[in-house]
């Protein structure tokens, strides 16, 4: 047989390449461009190499913000994932109750970020806010503008309120896709409630949980509007997260070089952590293969 070598089909990916170029590569390259230069004005610029990256990595303010960021993301994941699964397990499965609960649970997801911040800002005010006043009436001196603990607690509570529904919804859809025969077989095998959860429900939820955890991690790691509106990063810098530090640097101080370098580091961290999460969850499934009594 004569095999004709013709690789012209590669041209068919050109439109795709063009699209990706405009949507991702070109914007990213401008950032890369800034990150390796020191730009004074439109005619004066110096090539700086890795200098901005080194400066940024050694910047104590940003290091602190990064630590806060990790603390925040892991805290909300540790709360939202189990809570979301729990809510999904408790949600009614059929009838009008199912629809009603579904709508009620979805509501927080429909509110824009800065509106969520405003809602909670008012909610927690000591003079007119429902939560602020109530806590004060109960004798606790609640003040998010003074106490870092109160501020942290409130931001985490806000994020849990806003985003747990996403995990719950994903898990609910995962649970609904389990055929009734599995539960029937489990009853006949005399499986306990825990065993049903551990060996039927949780394995079937793995895929949606991977999506849920990755989405929630990325979202929370990039959180900006909600804490910005609620606490403005304070008191002090106790709730200043990475994105806010970056904005201050890029927009407020016009330090384009350092903030571009920092943006890239920020992006790489998210990429790295997502990869670690994904690999870890996939490996967890593999490890289960080992049997024995």
């Amino acid at each position, binding site marked *: 047989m004569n095999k004709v070598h013709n690789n012209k089909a590669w041209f068919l990916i050109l439109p795709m390449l063009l699209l990706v170029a405009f949507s991702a590569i070109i914007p990213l390259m401008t950032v890369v461009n800034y990150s390796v230069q020191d730009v004074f004005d439109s005619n004066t610029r110096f090539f700086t190499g890795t200098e901005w990256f080194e400066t940024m990595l050694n910047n104590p303010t940003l290091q602190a913000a990064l630590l806060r960021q990790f603390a925040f993301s892991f805290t909300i994941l540790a709360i939202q994932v189990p809570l979301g699964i729990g809510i999904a397990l408790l949600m009614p499965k059929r009838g009008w109750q199912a629809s009603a609960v579904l709508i009620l649970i979805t509501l927080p997801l429909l509110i824009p970020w800065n509106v969520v911040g405003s809602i909670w800002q008012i909610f927690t005010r000591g003079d007119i806010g429902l939560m602020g006043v109530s806590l004060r009436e109960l004798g606790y001196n609640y003040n998010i503008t003074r106490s870092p603990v109160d501020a942290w607690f409130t931001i985490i509570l806000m994020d849990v309120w806003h985003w747990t529904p996403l995990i719950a919804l994903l898990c609910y859809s995962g649970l609904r896709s389990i055929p009734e025969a599995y539960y029937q077989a489990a009853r006949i095998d005399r499986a306990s409630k825990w065993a049903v959860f551990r060996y039927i429900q949780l394995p079937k939820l793995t895929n949606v949980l991977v999506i849920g955890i990755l989405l929630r991690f990325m979202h929370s790691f990039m959180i900006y509007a909600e804490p910005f509106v609620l606490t403005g990063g304070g008191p002090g810098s106790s709730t200043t997260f990475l994105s806010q530090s970056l904005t201050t640097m890029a927009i407020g101080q016009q330090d384009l070089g350092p903030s571009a370098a920092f943006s890239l580091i920020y992006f790489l961290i998210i990429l790295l952590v997502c990869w670690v999460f994904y690999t870890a969850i996939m490996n967890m499934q593999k490890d*289960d293969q080992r049997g024995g009594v």
Partner: protein
Amino acid sequence: MAQITLKTLAHSYSPNPAGPEDYAIREMSHVWHQGGAYALLGPSGCGKSTLLNIISGLLQPSDGEVIFDDLIVNDLPPEERNIAQVFQFPVIYDTMTVFDNLAFPLRNIRTPVDKIKQRVAEVADILDLTPLLKRKAKNLTADEKQKVSMGRGLVRDDVSAILFDEPLTVIDPQLKWKLRRKLKEIHEKFNITMIYVTHDQLEASTFADKIAVMYEGQVVQFGTPRELFEVPAHPFVGYFIGSPGMNILDIELTQAGARVNDVPLPLSHRFHTAMRRADSRNLKLGIRPEFVEVLSKASDDSCMVEVKNTQDLGTYRILSFQFAGLNLKARIDEDAIVSGDRIHVRFPEEHLNLYVDEFRVEVGDE
């Protein structure tokens, strides 16, 4: 080990059933003997899965009693009934190995580790699963998965009955036969009562000693495969079992004799007597295509029919013909000669079944 008795059992999915049509299971009483291999045969939606779920306890019957030996188990949940059930689609625990899957029911009742190892090894051996024990159940083929589901039923030694709900639906045809053999083998070895739900008459008759044919929520006949074929107790059994199904003729009894759509049907005196005695307008005669005789010339008990076509099926042919506006079939030898559009056929009376109000009536001698 148990004998399962259904006593005046009925089930309706609606809370206030008005008539028999509201019942998924119409009132029935049956005994399934310890150690028997039974099949529940019927078309989709006839209530066979409902009946199975009632026996296993996944469903509470609205009327009547389910009795295991002497114990009424109506209020016992499935986990306390000592039954195993194999579903249409294999149910396996994805994250576990085959070994863990088989050990699962034993671990749930806190069986000692040595006993678990021994039982799992035994069952795996019977089902040819031994080489797969360390594999993850998720990666098995459909038939292997179904064997694992069966194995979970077999590992418990307190199981009184195994119920199968169309277990071979997702299995490849060439493996179906093997698995059916396996089931038969297990039945002989363990002496467990087995009830097998299917809509495939071949599956039912190769597996079961006795078959219950269900139709519209009723068991219309309960008998050996041979009985079902030779003396169908209900026109539906005749139609459903056998290929092609039984010919059914609606009979109208007039002063002049039996008629089918105004065409006279020659019948002997004893049939007429039996039909008069029945005193019903719902009269049917059934005859299997295997027993219809094609004659070369007219006789006093033959009918003239119109030939539609013949279908060659290798060792025999199926002759389709029209009689009194009804499409009927006869099974004839491959070398039988059918000449012309009109031929004479005879319905031998020893193979004619009389149905009064849909149920078979014995025709007396005189």
